[in-house]
């Protein structure tokens, strides 16, 4: 079917996309790798030349790196836990025969469309502000001392905000998967007199397994790169309490002008993301074979 002519043509049609993405992928990555082995500080032009592993030793050896790495994992893990469990629960609930299902779907998905800095600022000022935030009003009404969330629980507060943004995504994907479960399968299970718990465990959960995997993997990719939420709320502080790997690289490379060390951090972030990416590609790749 594919004649030589069509083959040449299809290559020509793919060329712009392939070339553009190839450049986008290779040039900056090679530069990051190159800088990471150089002495390169914008504030100190005298310091030049090959640095060997010095940047890596400096970045990885600094306590801020360990903390940023732990924070990254806590942030990703915490948000995943909330969104996957909450999303499964919400999807099951919205799949019940309830009134106003269509409107509920729209209401529930809304937070996903709120741009990250707005989400963060609305939570920071409207809800978590110790003076006039909604939560402080609530705490006072209950006779409690309002909490200064971003000073006392900086990372947890950011986890809450990010989970609020991603819970709708998990819910929507899981609900879509749930609704593709065939009516016959459900009815057959009901006829057999299967209890709700068993139905969930043996029919619904296996059916949703793939969707859950995909939710976890896609969210992980995005959650590793959380930036704006940290930038507008805590600025990574107090100290490094809410600095993740992305923010640490930004802080080192752009704010402190240490190109070499920032690049070394960037390389570490790329390696981390690649480990996750390999799993995601496998999951999506399987789908392609069908």
């Amino acid at each position, binding site marked *: 079917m*594919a004649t030589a002519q*069509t083959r040449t043509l*299809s290559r020509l*049609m793919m060329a712009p*996309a*392939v070339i*553009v*993405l190839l450049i986008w*992928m290779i040039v*900056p*990555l090679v*530069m*990051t790798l190159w800088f990471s082995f150089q002495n390169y500080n914008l504030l100190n032009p005298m310091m030049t030349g090959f640095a060997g592993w010095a940047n890596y030793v400096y970045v990885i050896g600094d306590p801020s790196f360990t903390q940023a790495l732990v924070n990254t994992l806590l942030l990703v893990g915490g948000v995943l836990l909330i969104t996957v469990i909450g999303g499964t629960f919400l999807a099951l*609930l*919205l799949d*019940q*025969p*309830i*009134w106003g299902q269509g409107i*509920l779907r*729209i*209401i529930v*998905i*809304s*937070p*996903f469309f*709120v*741009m990250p*800095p*707005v989400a963060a600022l609305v939570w920071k*000022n*409207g*809800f978590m502000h110790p003076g*006039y935030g*909604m939560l402080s*009003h609530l705490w006072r009404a209950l006779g409690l001392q309002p909490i200064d969330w971003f000073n006392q629980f900086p990372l947890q507060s950011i986890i809450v905000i990010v989970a*609020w943004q991603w*819970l*709708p995504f998990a819910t929507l994907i899981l609900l*879509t998967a749930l609704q593709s479960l065939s009516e016959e399968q*459900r009815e057959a299970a*009901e006829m057999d007199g299967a209890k*709700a718990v068993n139905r969930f465990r043996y029919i619904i959960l296996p059916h949703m397994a793939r*969707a859950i995997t995909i939710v976890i993997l896609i969210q992980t990719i995005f959650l590793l790169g959380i*930036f*704006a939420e940290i*930038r507008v709320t805590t600025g990574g502080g107090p100290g490094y309490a809410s600095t993740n790997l*992305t923010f640490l690289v*930004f802080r080192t*490379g*752009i704010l402190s002008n240490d*190109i070499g060390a920032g*690049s070394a*951090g*960037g390389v570490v972030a*790329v390696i981390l*993301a690649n480990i996750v990416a390999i799993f995601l590609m496998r*999951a*999506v790749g399987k789908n*392609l074979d069908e």
Partner: protein
Amino acid sequence: MARNASTGTRIGFTLLAWVIALLLFSPILWTLLTAFKTEAEAIAARPTFFPQTFTLENFAAVQQRSDYIKHATNSVIVSLGSTLLGLLIGIPAAWAMAFAPTRRTKDVLMWMLSTKMMPAVGVLIPIYLIFRDLRLLDTVHGLTIIMTLINLPIIIWMLYTYFKEIPVDILEASRMDGAELWNEIVHVLVPMAVPGIASTLLLNVILAWNEAFWSITLTSGRAGTLTAFISSFSSPQGLFLAKLSAASLLAIAPILLLGWFSQKQLVRGLTFGAVK
């Protein structure tokens, strides 16, 4: 599950679902209400639900102080421009892969997706330096280029999953009639692919509109999009709740409306067709 549930169960589930949904929605609702309050009322010790004195002064103040219109225009140019540019590059590529697949097509697709997996921060520093040297920092076209690149894999993937569903027979038939390939694309493929292209466009406008990493790091006053605009309110002098709410509302309202229309395509697009 139980389609013949009793009315009692149904009322119970309905109530529970509405309570949870409204709780999730409350930050947005609160922003909407606060935007129309006076500053004094917004931070009053006794909070009010509905604005006691309904005012539009916050919107005027936001426009005057930070020029919302300019930032919104930048957002429109960047998100629409990068999406159209992405479609221009992506449509031929997706067409070729969907209708003239080779042994390597799958690998190419996976490779394209893998570029999306690259964390932005891994290339932030070189991009920042290149932009500085080429004087692209804080320019609308500079940001548009980056936005096109980061969304191109999603654009190609979405288009590919839509194109693959177009029956090949129709294309074969038109080829028999001696229609040239270009005519085939314009007159046969495009009309059938329009819904898919429209969904791709919609989703990518939303993604580009809400993109915050590159717009915050690469732009500021001149070419700042709405994500950069709203981030400027995190500084202490910006901490006026009513004005902040007005600014937030202005930044999210257009995309919230678009998002409501595109929620079904969103699932498919963001899971690269793995969940439909």
